[in-house]
C-alpha cells in the first residue's frame, strides 16, 4: 500500500502533448463549410432577382425591373390568392383534425386509442408525392372508391382537382404535426388543472372545452404557423392536382417558370423565389416568437404524470367508429390501395382482384435502366448523404454547444436558417449556383449535387434531433477530460461524440428517411443519370404510367416502413445508464 502511495504521489508526469492548434482549423472549417452551404442557393436567387438577364449571360445590369414585371404578370395576383387560400384551408383542416385526434386519442377512454394514434401519424412518414398518388388511386376521377360510388350514386361529392380538394389531402397529411404538438403539450400540462375543474363540478365536455382546449391553445397556434409555412412550400399536391385543373400556386409557378417551361424566365422565377423566401422568413420568425410564448405557457406543472382519461360514456363506441372510418378513409385506403395497385395490372371494383394480381409492374420498372437507377440513386443519396450530413451536423452541434468558438452563436443561427428556405427556393437556388460557379459544373450531372442540396435543407432537422441530447450530457464530463489533459478535439472524439451515439443514430435515421422521400429540391436539380425515386415518380406520372408509379411508390413506402420500424427497435436500446 505504501509503495502505491509513493508512486501515486511521485514526480509529476510530463504534461500531455498540446494539440490546441487543432481546435481553430476544425471549428473555423466547419463554420465556413456551413456558411457556404447555406449561402450557396440563397445568394444566386437574390442576385438573379435584381439583374436583367440570366445569370450565365454576360453584360448583366442591376435592375428592379423583375419585381415590377412580376407584379404586372397576368394572373400572378390569382397565384398569390390561390396560394393563400390553399395554405389557409390546409392549416384549418390540419389544426381541427390534429386537435380532435390529440384530445380523443390522448385524453379519453376511446377503445384502441393508441393504435388509432399510431395510424394517424403515418402520413408524416411519407412524401406528399406518394400520398397524392395514393389519393388519386382511391379518390381520383377513375379511382377505386370513385368508381364504386359512381356505380351506386350519381357523381361523387368530392373533386380533388379543386382548392378544397387539394387542401383536404394536404390537411390530412399535415394533421399529425398539430397532433404531435398538442400531445406533447398535453403530457406536460399539470393534470391537477383538469382535476380541479372536475372536482368543482364541471362535466367531461365542459372541462374539455373550458380547460383542456384553452391549455392546448399555444401548441395549436404554434403548429398552425408551422403548418401554414409547410403548406406554402408544398409542391406535390398542387403539381398533381392543381396544374391539370389550371390552379397555379407559388410553388408550381416557380416550377413552371424556373425549370419546366419551354423558355424559363429566370428573372421572374428568382423574384418569385425571393418573395417566397421573405414570406417564409417572416413566418419562421413568427414561429420563434410563438414558441417563446408557448414555453411560458406550457411548463407549468412539468410532471410527466399521465392524467386520468376523460370518460366518453355512451359516445365511446360511436366516436370510435367515426375515428376508425376516418383513419380507414384517409390513411389506410390511400396507402393500401396504392400498394395493391402496384401488385395489380389493373384495379377496378368491377374486376375481382385475384384475376389482376401480378408482379408485372415491378419487372417492367426494373427493365427500364432509368428507374432501376433512380431506386439505386435514392439509396446511395440517403445512405451516404445521410452519413455525411450526420457528421456535419454532429460537428456543428459540438461546436455550438460544447466549445468556446468565437462565432458559435452566428454558426448556430446559420445552421438553423434553412428552416426558412422552402424546398423549391433551395432547388432553384442550387440550380443557379451550378450555373454560376464554374467549379460546380463537374458535379452538375451527378447525385452529389443532390447530396449537397439535401444536406443543406436538412441541417436544422438533424440538429433538432442531436442538440437536445447533447445538452443533457453533463458539461462536467467534457470538463473532466479537458482538465486531465485532453484538448478540445480529443474530448469531442473520445467523450462527447461516443456519448451522443443514440442521438446520432436517430439523426441518421431521420435524415435517411427525409432524403429518401425528398423530391421538391431534386426536380430542379436532377439530370439524366442522377434521377431519384421522387423525380422518377413525377416522370412516370406525366407519362400516365399509373401501375409503374404505384410500384415505385410502393418501394418508397416499403423502405420507409422498414426504417421506421428498425429505428423504433434501435431507440428502444439505451446506452449504459
Amino acid at each position, binding site marked *: 500500500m505504501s509503495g502505491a502511495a509513493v508512486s501515486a*504521489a511521485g514526480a*509529476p508526469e510530463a504534461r500531455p502533448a498540446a494539440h490546441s492548434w487543432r481546435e481553430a482549423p476544425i471549428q473555423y472549417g466547419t463554420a465556413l463549410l456551413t456558411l457556404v452551404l447555406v449561402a450557396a442557393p440563397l445568394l444566386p436567387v437574390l442576385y438573379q432577382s435584381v439583374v436583367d438577364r440570366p445569370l450565365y449571360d454576360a453584360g448583366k445590369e442591376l435592375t428592379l425591373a423583375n419585381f415590377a414585371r412580376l407584379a404586372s404578370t397576368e394572373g400572378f395576383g390569382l397565384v398569390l390568392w390561390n396560394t393563400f387560400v390553399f395554405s389557409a384551408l390546409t392549416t384549418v383542416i390540419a389544426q381541427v383534425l390534429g386537435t380532435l385526434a390529440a384530445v380523443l386519442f390522448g385524453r379519453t377512454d376511446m377503445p384502441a386509442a393508441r393504435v388509432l394514434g399510431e395510424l394517424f401519424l403515418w402520413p408524416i412518414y411519407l412524401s406528399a408525392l406518394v400520398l397524392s398518388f395514393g389519393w388519386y388511386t382511391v379518390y381520383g376521377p377513375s379511382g377505386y372508391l370513385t368508381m364504386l360510388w359512381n356505380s351506386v350514386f350519381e357523381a361523387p361529392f368530392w373533386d380533388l382537382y379543386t382548392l378544397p380538394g387539394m387542401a383536404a389531402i394536404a390537411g390530412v397529411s399535415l394533421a399529425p404535426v398539430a397532433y404531435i404538438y398538442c400531445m406533447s403539450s398535453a403530457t406536460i400540462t399539470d393534470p391537477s388543472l383538469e382535476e380541479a375543474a372536475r372536482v368543482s363540478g364541471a362535466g367531461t365536455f365542459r372541462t374539455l372545452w373550458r380547460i383542456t382546449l384553452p391549455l392546448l391553445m399555444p401548441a395549436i397556434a404554434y403548429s398552425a404557423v408551422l403548418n401554414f409555412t409547410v403548406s406554402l412550400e408544398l409542391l406535390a399536391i398542387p403539381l398533381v392536382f392543381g396544374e391539370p385543373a389550371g390552379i397555379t400556386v407559388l410553388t408550381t409557378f416557380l416550377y413552371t417558370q424556373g425549370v419546366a417551361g419551354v423558355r424559363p424566365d429566370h428573372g421572374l422565377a428568382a423574384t418569385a423565389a425571393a418573395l417566397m423566401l421573405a414570406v417564409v422568413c417572416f413566418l419562421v420568425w413568427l414561429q420563434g416568437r410563438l414558441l417563446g410564448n408557448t414555453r411560458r405557457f406550457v411548463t407549468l406543472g412539468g410532471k410527466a404524470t399521465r392524467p386520468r382519461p376523460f370518460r366518453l360514456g355512451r359516445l365511446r363506441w360511436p366516436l370510435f367508429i367515426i375515428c376508425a372510418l376516418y383513419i380507414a378513409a384517409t390513411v389506410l385506403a390511400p396507402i393500401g390501395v396504392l400498394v395493391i395497385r402496384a401488385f395489380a395490372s389493373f384495379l377496378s371494383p368491377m374486376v375481382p382482384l385475384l384475376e389482376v394480381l401480378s408482379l408485372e409492374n415491378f419487372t417492367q420498372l426494373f427493365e427500364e435502366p432509368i428507374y432501376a437507377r433512380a431506386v439505386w440513386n435514392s439509396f446511395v443519396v440517403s445512405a451516404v448523404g445521410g452519413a455525411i450530413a450526420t457528421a456535419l451536423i454532429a460537428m456543428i452541434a459540438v461546436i455550438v454547444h460544447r466549445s468556446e468558438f468565437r462565432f458559435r452563436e452566428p454558426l448556430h443561427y446559420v445552421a438553423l436558417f434553412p428552416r426558412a428556405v422552402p424546398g423549391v427556393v433551395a432547388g432553384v437556388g442550387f440550380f443557379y449556383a451550378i450555373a454560376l460557379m464554374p467549379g460546380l459544373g463537374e458535379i452538375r450531372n451527378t447525385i452529389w449535387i443532390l447530396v449537397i442540396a439535401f444536406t443543406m435543407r436538412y441541417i436544422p432537422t438533424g440538429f433538432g434531433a442531436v442538440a437536445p441530447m447533447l445538452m443533457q450530457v453533463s458539461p*462536467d464530463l467534457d470538463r*473532466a477530460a479537458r482538465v486531465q*489533459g*485532453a*484538448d478540445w478535439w480529443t474530448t469531442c472524439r473520445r467523450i462527447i461524440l461516443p*456519448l451522443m451515439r443514440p442521438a446520432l443514430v436517430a439523426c441518421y435515421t431521420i435524415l435517411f428517411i427525409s432524403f429518401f422521400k425528398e423530391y421538391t429540391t431534386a426536380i430542379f436539380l436532377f439530370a439524366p443519370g442522377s434521377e431519384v425515386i421522387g423525380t422518377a415518380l413525377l416522370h412516370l406520372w406525366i407519362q400516365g404510367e399509373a401501375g409503374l408509379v404505384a410500384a415505385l411508390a410502393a418501394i418508397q413506402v416499403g423502405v420507409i416502413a422498414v426504417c421506421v420500424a428498425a429505428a423504433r427497435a434501435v431507440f428502444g436500446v439505451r446506452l449504459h445508464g
Partner: protein
Amino acid sequence: MAELVIENLTKRFGEVVAVDSVSIHVADGEFVTLLGPSGCGKSTTLAAVAGLDRPDGGRISVGGTVYFDERTGTFLPPEARNCGLVFQSYALWPHMTVFDNVVFPLTLRKVPSAERKRRVEEVLALVEMEPYADRYPHQLSGGQQQRVALARTLVYRPEILLLDEPLSNLDAKLRDRARTWLAELRTRLGLTTIYVTHDQIEALSLSDRIVVMNGGRIAQIGTPQDIYERPADPFVADFIGTTNFLPGRVVGAPDGGQALIELEDGQRVAVQVERRTAAPGSRVTLAYRPEQIGVVAEGEAAPDGAGSVVTARVISRAYVGGRWQVGLDLGGGPLRLETARPPSGEQVRLWLPAAGGILFQGSTDVSSE
C-alpha cells in the same frame, strides 16, 4: 507538487462580481480548504485554477508555471495545466469501464501500455477499487464512484489536486467514512490540495488552513483552530459552528484586559478584550459558542474564574437524543444551547466566562439561526 499562488483573482458574470480580488498562497504540500456558503465564489475560484473559466483579472501560478496572467494575456487551456480535479458529480464517463476511465489520462500522456496497466492497478489498489476495474460507473455506488474519480485524478500525478465538494453527494454515514479515509489518504500523498466545501466539519477536520469566503471575498484565512476560536467577523463566527449573538453596549472603559458590556435588558457581562478596543458607549455584538456557556443551577455558586452570571428566559426545550436543546431569550436576543438535563423552571442562570466571549464592533444582523 508545487506551491500555488493566486493574486488578485477577479471574475465577473455580467454585472455580478463572483470573485473579487482574491489572493491565496498555498504552500507546497499544503491542504487548503475554500469554505463558504453557495455563491460565495469558492467554486469559481477553483474553476479558474483548473482553467475551466477564464478570469477577468489577476494572476495564477503553480510552481514555476503561470496558468493565467491578465496583464500579459497568458491563459493556459485546462489540458495544458496538469491539474487534478475531482468533480462534485464525479464526472465519470458513463460509456467507459472503471479501467478505461482511469487509463484515459495515461493514454493521453502516451505512457507505454504495460506501464499504463501497472499504474492503473496500483492506483485502483490505493483507493481500494481493484475488484471493480471492469464495471461501468452506473454499476457502482456513490462512494465507489467517488473513489474512482479520485483514482482517475491521482493516476497521472497532477501538480496540484483540486477537490470540488467531493463528499456532498454521499449520504451522511458514508460521508463520515469517506472523510476519514480522505484524511488518511491526504497525509499519505502529501499533494498540494485545494478543497472546496460548504461543510464546516470537512473543512475543520481535513485542512491545514481554511479560507472562509463570503460574497466573492476572503473573510478570513487561518488554521482550523484560528477560524473556530478567533473568527475575524460575525459572518465567520456564524458560519463555522453554532454561535449565539448578543447585542449590547460598552459601559465603562476597558480595564485590565476586560470590558463590561450591558445587554439590552440591562444585565452586564464582562469579556476579555485582546487587541480589539471597545470604546465606551459604542454598540457591540458579543458572540458565544454554545459549549462555552454553562448553566448554573439554582442556589449553586458560579464557577471560579472571571465571568458573569446572567438570567435568561426559557422559550423552548427539545430532547434530541442524550441531550436537550434549549432555546432561550437573553435580553431580547435568541440563544441556543445544549444541556444534559432539561431546565426545570421558566428561567435559567447562565455562566458566561470572560475568556469565552468574542467581541465584534457594531450591531449585526446575523442571527443565530
